[in-house]
């Protein structure tokens, strides 16, 4: 039975799609042209990754449906599950992304910190998934790792630049840490599907901790301790932010089912 695996793949896809959608809000609003292009490039990388995962999830959902193992999700206007039906026709409660990626862009510091914390997680996760017994997951992870390596490098440099920059940039980073740190713990708290698939989040956390500490130290920023961690996103209990993203993202397909352009 594949439903656990389908849930996990949707979790990976949702993480990438929602952060991609968030970053894309910077398009045309970046602080300078060059960084506007950089952040929207990252957006496109992430949306590309989510497509690969959605396509694979759709394939597994349709196969399971044919074997009568599961009921395909509502796919009005699509016939069967597709990458589009999965992105456009699921509700908030069905989205399995972690809370971190749905948080508001805020200022540049906040967007950079969100990207850094998440890219760092994605970097070690994809490295780990490269040896997943599922060949498709392993292949998507391998392909995406190159993109994520760059995202991590790029966002790390911004953390250092802002943290160790002017008084203003440092204050903004401190505010970003206050705002976002509480969502970082969820990355390593296993959801039922991660437990069932034996995803080794504990060793990912060690690697993540070391890298984040090293970069924050270079940026002369404190690493918060003993922060209460918000959870729920992985199992569909989101912050208020996700609904707004989905209403933007899904509006066209909801208003004009099956529309193409």
């Amino acid at each position: 039975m594949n439903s656990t695996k389908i849930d996990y793949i949707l979790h990976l896809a949702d993480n990438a799609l929602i952060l991609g959608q968030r970053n894309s809000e910077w398009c045309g609003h970046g602080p300078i042209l060059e960084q506007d292009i950089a952040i929207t490039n990252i957006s496109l990388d992430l949306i590309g990754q989510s497509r690969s995962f959605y396509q694979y999830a759709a394939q597994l959902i349709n196969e399971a449906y044919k074997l009568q193992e599961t009921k395909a999700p509502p796919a009005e206007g699509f016939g069967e599950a597709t990458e589009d039906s999965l992105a456009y026709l699921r509700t908030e409660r069905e989205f399995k992304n972690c809370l971190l990626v749905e948080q508001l862009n805020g200022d540049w510091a906040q967007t950079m910190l969100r990207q850094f914390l998440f890219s760092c997680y994605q970097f070690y996760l994809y490295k780990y998934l490269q040896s997943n017994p599922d060949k498709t997951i392993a292949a998507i992870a391998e392909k995406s790792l190159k993109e994520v390596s760059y995202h991590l490098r790029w966002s790390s440099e911004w953390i250092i630049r802002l943290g160790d920059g002017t008084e203003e940039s440092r204050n903004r980073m401190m505010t970003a840490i206050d705002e976002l740190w509480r969502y970082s713990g969820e990355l390593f708290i296993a959801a039922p599907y991660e437990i069932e698939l034996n995803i080794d989040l504990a060793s990912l956390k060690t690697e993540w901790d070391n890298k984040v500490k090293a970069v924050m130290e270079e940026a002369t920023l404190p690493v918060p301790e003993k922060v209460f961690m918000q959870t729920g996103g992985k199992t569909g209990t989101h912050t208020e932010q996700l609904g707004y993203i989905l209403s933007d993202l899904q509006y066209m397909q909801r208003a004009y089912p099956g529309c193409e352009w």
Partner: protein
Amino acid sequence: MSFGVRLLYYGDIPEEKGGGKTDAKSSGHDWPLWEVFIRSKNGLDHKHAGSLHAADAQMAIENARDVYTRRMEGVSIWVVESKYITASNPEEAGELYEPAVDKIYRHPTFYNLPDEVNYM
């Protein structure tokens, strides 16, 4: 006769006429301007692709990667801060380039090639 040496960059337009300005007023921030050179594939030379703003060399490379190689344009990037490029003065174009105009004998077009040489 005396020659004035002036530093020019960014399309050879003198600074006072609006070329190569890097000050905060014109660009909205105070990052220096960098010239970007891209090698499109191994074996070819780096060609000037354009310019961009960046705070330091590393950021210039990354910005260049994002701005100029998104569509597989390159395999190698050079960046150099625009202020380090010395350009010829367009006002001296006459004395610099025009003397070459009537020296057609400097082109190797007056040799008779043997028939065996096909591709020259």
